[in-house]
């Protein structure tokens, strides 16, 4: 069969190849090429004819121009040069291409002749053109020759018309007879001769042209070409015959094949029918796919098993399509048996075991077995088995002999034994050894009689721990009623017992805690409250159960508060906060309440538990703290802190309402005297009375505050104009005028009031205070019991200050400061021993600014700190510079203000500077002012001692102006005193000053302090001080403060001047 098929195919292929080849041959016989060739040959012939026509027209002088013939020849030229056309004739047989060449050569000959004809025709034409003019000339000049001329000319034209050479000869002869020398006649003769010879040449050329054998050549070419073509056509005919024969053979072959196939087809169909019949009648579903994975055959049961794909069960359906359709309504399971076959679980509830096997052909055969029944039973068993394995109860199965056959996972978990460990053993393995309160006899009796037994065991785990189990044991009987097994279902009740314990404990806490506890249902019905609840609220359990907590509401919290509470409970399951509630007796009290939403095991709301404590006490404490923080303890008026806070709010209110407010800064006059003379307690009482009086003159919306000491501040709100403020200020002054009765005395004080307004004077509370303060000082300056508005002049001052502050900051950066040094001379050594460093500010615009102007500002703004540091460093560097100049025994005094101390300046900082520059600290004298001692703090003393510890000296500046007494100084580690120049100025004439200075000198000596007199300007003063044994002198007498570079010269000068000022014979 295979051999037969192979032969069949081979023959067919051969026949088709042959057919194709023949077609190719037939087709390849360039019918198209031949057509093109014919066309070209015909074109050549047409050209030939056209050339003839042109030459004819030209030679008959009828052509106006030669462009036509030029175009004609150019076309031929193009045709010849065209490589495509040339290619058409390349592969012709040699005789034929020879013929073509010959014909082309005749064409070229004719073209060349035509060119000559063109040239000659022009000449002839011109000759003929000129003759009539010449004749006219003869008629004019040589009339006697007119007759022969006419004759000659008419012969000439005759010749030109008929072109007979005989005529030409005759004409030449006739011309020769004309021998007259007349110029016109000669010209005529010349031109006619020319014309004749040109025409003759033209005639000859035309003859030559006609003789070119172009027609013959063409005919030969064309007939040769035709025979060539005929040959080709003949060959094509043969091929066509062969083609027809071959086609017939092929048709016969095909008919045979068709018949053969028909027979085979019938056989196949019968076989298929049988097969189909067979498979239709088996129990399993069956489907067969070919190698292309297309369905060939499926049986009836297949459609029965998969009714939803019955439409697809046509031969030719791709396997993938069928598979997808089936999969749409079933899902797969792995079969449990070892074959690992797939089981389909169809949506209509059938289980089909799939067996897909490849066929030898490369296709596939599907067999499906319905295993639904077995499956369902298995399922059933599996369910029970699962129930057993997942059961929260421990299950033990034992045989009739009481030996364990099975324990479930729970039993394993509870006992700690694995199934393998206990199989075949007696349940005694679980026994705790007689601890269980069980009567085993009764138990067995009951079980063997077929009844279930229930009881509690105390058992022992594998790890030795004990546990409680509640067990139900029953017997399993076979269909005959014979007991085969015992099944024990047991529950571990250890935990339950523990939980009960826990509950008991919780209950105790509930009963005994100090915090009130209330439990409600999810809909807020009170279930339970504890004794603490009753204690706090007064309500007993009986009073409240079944009520909602609304009965406690105080009404102090708005609706929104409770809404927020519930929101939080819903969102966070808890809420805590402060709430005011009502006791049973109707009193309100604050409580700190925490509510928690308790959920049950399913996550559903079970209860609310509210725990609270009574906050009454805590509230009271808080209120007290607030009071202390914001109110003055003495007068109960708002203090400075609260004032500042309130001011901000008042200011905001003003901004919103667009109204103004005023601040009255009240300073009591003469209060200090009261305090000093009558003691603080009287002072305090007075302040309390003052606050009462002040409170009486203000409106409710106004604010009064004790600002500090004897200063009070009143803030007036919602003012129409500043006049109102003035009136209040007046009332304030007036109310304080009447005397105070205190400590059995009648005391008079007064008040000065400064007023600043918002928003006119200031833009914030702080500034308002400052401005009112300034105004108050001015009021005080103007005398007591006055009030003063902050005004533009003050504003100017403020502005100046602000500008100066700005400039001061820049001054530090711009190095605008300079140190001047004023020498301090010693009268005993007759030389300068030290110099005080004095700062000068060279302002770029305002020039030199006095320290009196800027130092207070620097103190206020804190800029004193950087300035002070700069002064110290600069002084140190100057010492080094002077040392390099040979001045070694000079100390420098540097001023230090108490503010510097507050800003962090201390010995450590100073030491860092001195050491970094390389100056011995003993060369530096720190001058401090008396006010530092006013504080009299141990910190100040420590601070000073640290400077001493460095080796530096300490001096008190401007001594005598402050309040400190000399005895006071003992506590301080001071080295020197500088007597203020105020006491020196009027020496020695002013007796009072003289006495004071005397006392100071005497006292300082006893304290071992070194003295320096400042501001010494006259010789008298010097002598006087010298006399009193004040050794050190500073002042203009010796030198004003000078620049650093000038000081060495000044020192020399002073040294020189000493002998004159203090002559040696001058004795104390």
């Amino acid at each position, binding site marked *: 069969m295979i051999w037969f098929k192979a032969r069949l195919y081979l023959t067919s292929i051969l026949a088709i190849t042959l057919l194709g080849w023949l077609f190719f041959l037939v087709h390849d016989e360039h019918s198209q090429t031949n057509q093109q060739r014919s066309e070209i040959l015909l074109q050549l012939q047409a050209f030939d004819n056209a050339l003839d026509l042109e030459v004819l027209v030209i030679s008959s002088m009828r052509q106006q121009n*030669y*462009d036509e013939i*030029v175009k004609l*020849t150019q076309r031929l*030229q193009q045709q010849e040069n065209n490589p495509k056309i040339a290619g058409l004739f390349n592969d012709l047989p040699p005789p034929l291409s020879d013929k073509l060449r010959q014909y082309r050569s005749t064409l070229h000959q004719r073209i060349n002749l035509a060119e000559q004809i063109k*040239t000659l025709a*022009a*000449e002839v034409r011109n000759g003929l053109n*000129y003759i009539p003019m010449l004749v006219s000339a003869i008629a004019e000049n040589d009339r006697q020759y007119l007759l022969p001329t006419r004759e000659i000319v008419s012969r000439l034209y005759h010749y030109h018309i008929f072109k007979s050479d005989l005529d030409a000869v005759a004409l030449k002869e006739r011309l020769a007879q004309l021998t007259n020398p007349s110029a016109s006649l000669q*010209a005529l003769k010349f031109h006619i001769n020319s014309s004749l010879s040109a025409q003759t040449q033209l005639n000859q050329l035309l003859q030559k042209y006609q003789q070119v054998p172009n027609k013959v050549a063409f005919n030969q070419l064309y007939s040769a070409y035709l025979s060539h073509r005929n040959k080709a056509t003949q060959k094509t005919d043969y091929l066509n015959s062969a083609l027809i024969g071959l086609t017939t053979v092929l048709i016969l072959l095909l008919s045979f094949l068709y018949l053969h196939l028909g027979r085979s087809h019938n056989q196949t169909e019968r076989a298929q029918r049988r097969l189909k019949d067979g498979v239709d009648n088996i129990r399993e579903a069956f489907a067969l796919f070919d190698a292309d994975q297309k369905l060939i055959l499926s049986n009836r049961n297949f459609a029965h098993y998969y009714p939803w794909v019955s439409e697809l069960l046509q031969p030719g359906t791709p396997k993938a399509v069928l598979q997808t359709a089936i999969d749409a309504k079933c899902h797969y399971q792995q079969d449990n048996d070892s074959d690992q076959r797939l089981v389909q679980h169809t949506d209509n509830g059938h289980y089909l075991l799939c067996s897909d096997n490849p066929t030898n052909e490369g296709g596939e055969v599907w067999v499906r077995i319905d295993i639904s029944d077995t499956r369902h039973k298995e399922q059933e068993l599996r369910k029970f088995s699962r129930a057993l394995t997942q059961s929260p109860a421990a299950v033990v199965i034992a045989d009739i002999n009481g030996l364990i056959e099975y324990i479930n996972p729970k039993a394993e978990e509870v006992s700690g034994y694995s199934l393998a460990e206990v199989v075949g053993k007696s349940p005694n393995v679980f026994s705790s050894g007689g601890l269980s309160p069980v009567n085993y006899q009764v138990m067995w009796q009951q079980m063997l009689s077929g009844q279930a037994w229930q009881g509690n065991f105390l058992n022992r785990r594998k790890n030795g721990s004990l546990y409680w189990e509640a067990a139900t044991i029953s017997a399993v009987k076979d269909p005959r009623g014979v007991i085969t097994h015992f099944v024990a279902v047991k529950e571990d009740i250890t935990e339950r017992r523990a939980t009960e314990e826990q509950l008991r404990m919780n209950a105790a806490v509930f009963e005994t805690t100090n915090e009130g506890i209330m439990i409600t249902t999810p809909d807020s019905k009170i279930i339970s409250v504890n004794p603490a609840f009753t204690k706090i609220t007064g309500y007993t359990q009986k009073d409240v159960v079944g009520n909602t907590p609304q009965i406690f509401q105080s009404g102090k919290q708005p609706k929104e508060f409770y809404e927020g509470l519930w929101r939080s409970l819903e969102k966070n399951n808890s809420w805590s906060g402060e709430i005011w509630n009502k006791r049973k007796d109707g009193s309100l009290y604050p409580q700190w309440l925490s509510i928690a939403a308790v959920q049950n095991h399913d996550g559903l709301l079970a209860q609310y538990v509210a725990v609270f404590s009574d906050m009454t006490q805590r509230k009271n404490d808080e209120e007290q703290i607030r009071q202390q923080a914001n109110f003055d303890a003495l007068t109960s008026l708002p203090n400075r802190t609260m004032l500042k806070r309130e001011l901000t709010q008042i200011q905001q209110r003003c901004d919103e309402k667009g109204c103004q407010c005023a601040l009255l800064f009240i300073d009591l006059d003469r209060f200090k005297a009261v305090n000093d003379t009558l003691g603080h307690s009287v002072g305090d009482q007075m302040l309390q009375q003052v606050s009462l009086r002040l409170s009486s003159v203000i409106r409710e919306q106004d604010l009064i505050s004790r600002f500090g000491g004897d200063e009070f501040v009143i803030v007036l709100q919602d003012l129409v104009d500043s006049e109102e403020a003035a009136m209040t200020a007046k009332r304030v002054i007036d109310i304080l005028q009447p005397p105070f009765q205190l400590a059995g005395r009648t005391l008079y004080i007064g008040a000065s009031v400064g007023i600043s307004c918002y928003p006119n004077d200031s833009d914030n509370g702080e500034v308002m205070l400052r401005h009112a303060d300034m105004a108050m000082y001015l009021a005080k300056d103007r005398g007591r019991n006055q009030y003063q508005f902050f005004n533009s002049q003050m504003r100017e001052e403020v502005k100046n200050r602000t500008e100066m502050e700005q400039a001061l900051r820049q001054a530090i950066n711009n190095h605008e400061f300079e140190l001047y040094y004023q020498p301090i001379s010693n009268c005993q050594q007759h030389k300068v021993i030290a110099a005080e460093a004095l700062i000068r500010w060279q302002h770029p615009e305002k020039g030199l600014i006095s320290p009196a102007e800027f130092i207070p500002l620097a103190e206020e703004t804190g800029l004193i700190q950087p300035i002070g540091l700069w002064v110290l460093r600069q002084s140190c560097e100057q010492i080094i510079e002077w040392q390099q100049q040979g001045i070694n025994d000079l100390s420098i005094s540097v001023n230090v203000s108490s503010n510097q101390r507050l800003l962090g300046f201390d010995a450590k900082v100073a030491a860092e500077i001195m050491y970094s520059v390389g100056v011995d600290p003993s060369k530096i004298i720190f001058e401090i002012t008396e006010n530092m001692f006013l504080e009299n703090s141990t910190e100040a003393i420590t601070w000073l001692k640290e400077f001493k510890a460095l080796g530096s000296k300490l001096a008190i500046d401007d001594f005598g102006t402050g309040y400190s007494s000399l005895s006071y100084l003992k506590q301080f580690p001071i080295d020197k005193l500088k007597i203020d120049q105020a006491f020196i100025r009027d020496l020695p004439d002013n007796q009072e000053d003289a006495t004071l200075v005397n006392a100071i000198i005497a006292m300082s000596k006893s304290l071992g302090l070194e003295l320096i007199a400042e501001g010494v300007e006259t010789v008298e003063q010097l002598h006087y001080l010298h006399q009193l044994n004040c050794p050190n002198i500073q002042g203009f007498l010796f030198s004003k403060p000078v620049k650093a570079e000038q000081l060495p010269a000044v020192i020399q000068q002073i040294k020189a001047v000493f002998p004159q000022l203090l002559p040696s014979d001058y004795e104390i």
Partner: protein
Amino acid sequence: MQALQQYNRAIISRLNLIGIAVTLLLLHTTASARDLSSEPITPISPISDLNQAKVDLGKVLFHDTRLSSDNSISCASCHDLKSGGADSTPLSLGVNGTKGTTNTPTVYNTQLNFVQFWDGRAANLHEQINGPVQNPVEMNTHWPEVTTKLSQDVLLRQAFEAVYPEGLKADNLRDAIAEFERSLITLNAPFDRWLKGDETALTDEQQQGYQLFKSYGCISCHQGANVGGNMYAHFGAVNDISAYFETRGTPLREADLGRYIITHDPLDRYLFKVPSLRMAAYTAPYFHDGAIPDLDSAIKIMGRFQLGREIPNQHITSISAFIRSLAGEHPELSE
């Protein structure tokens, strides 16, 4: 025609205003009725099948001195496009100052010529271009050298590759130049416009010149669209040309022999391609040797040797005026 005009003029003076209007109408109809379709000279038609990319390339090459051995001379050196397409010297100078053998003809309208060169040795423009390039007294180089030189010019090479599939090759160089030269045709000459019916395009003198040009017989050779350039003619068709060469002042040269140099046919002695008169007014000096500096003299010599007639000066002026009307317009001319 003249007679008609005279008649018109004569009667205009005798007729009243209505008469004038009627006559003008008459004149108009007679004027538009004149038939110029069979005149021996035809207008130059625009060329429709130009490949502009090639023209542009050709233009570049036309001005490219690399086409000469020492990079000194381009086509445009002798064929100055601004002044009539030729230069004003009798014989142009090639590389190293060598003199050419014949007067440079105009490059305008050359594609209308039936052959190229005075002696017709090139059948078309492609062939013609070889001449100057390889002529030792002109550009003195050869194509391999030129293509080597030009191939180093990347931009030019790319430009050629964009237009020609085979890129920069001698054939394509010639083709581009030829295409450019094909574009050099002069249109709208006053005479052409006159032929197309614009009677104001020619002055009376020019019209008279045309009549004389025809009646003297100049038209026999200078006809067609290019007014010449479509036939050969013997220099000295009627009178012996030796007289011309004798009076020329320079000895007879090989180039004087004309087409004989190519064919060696005794009949072709002094046979030259009849030159086009289209740009004649702008391409002095004249004749193959460039020996005649002005147009009037050239016309006189032509009359004497080609027609065997002495043309009076008055007629020469008219003919000369007519010849000037033959020159048309071209963008390169006005650039």
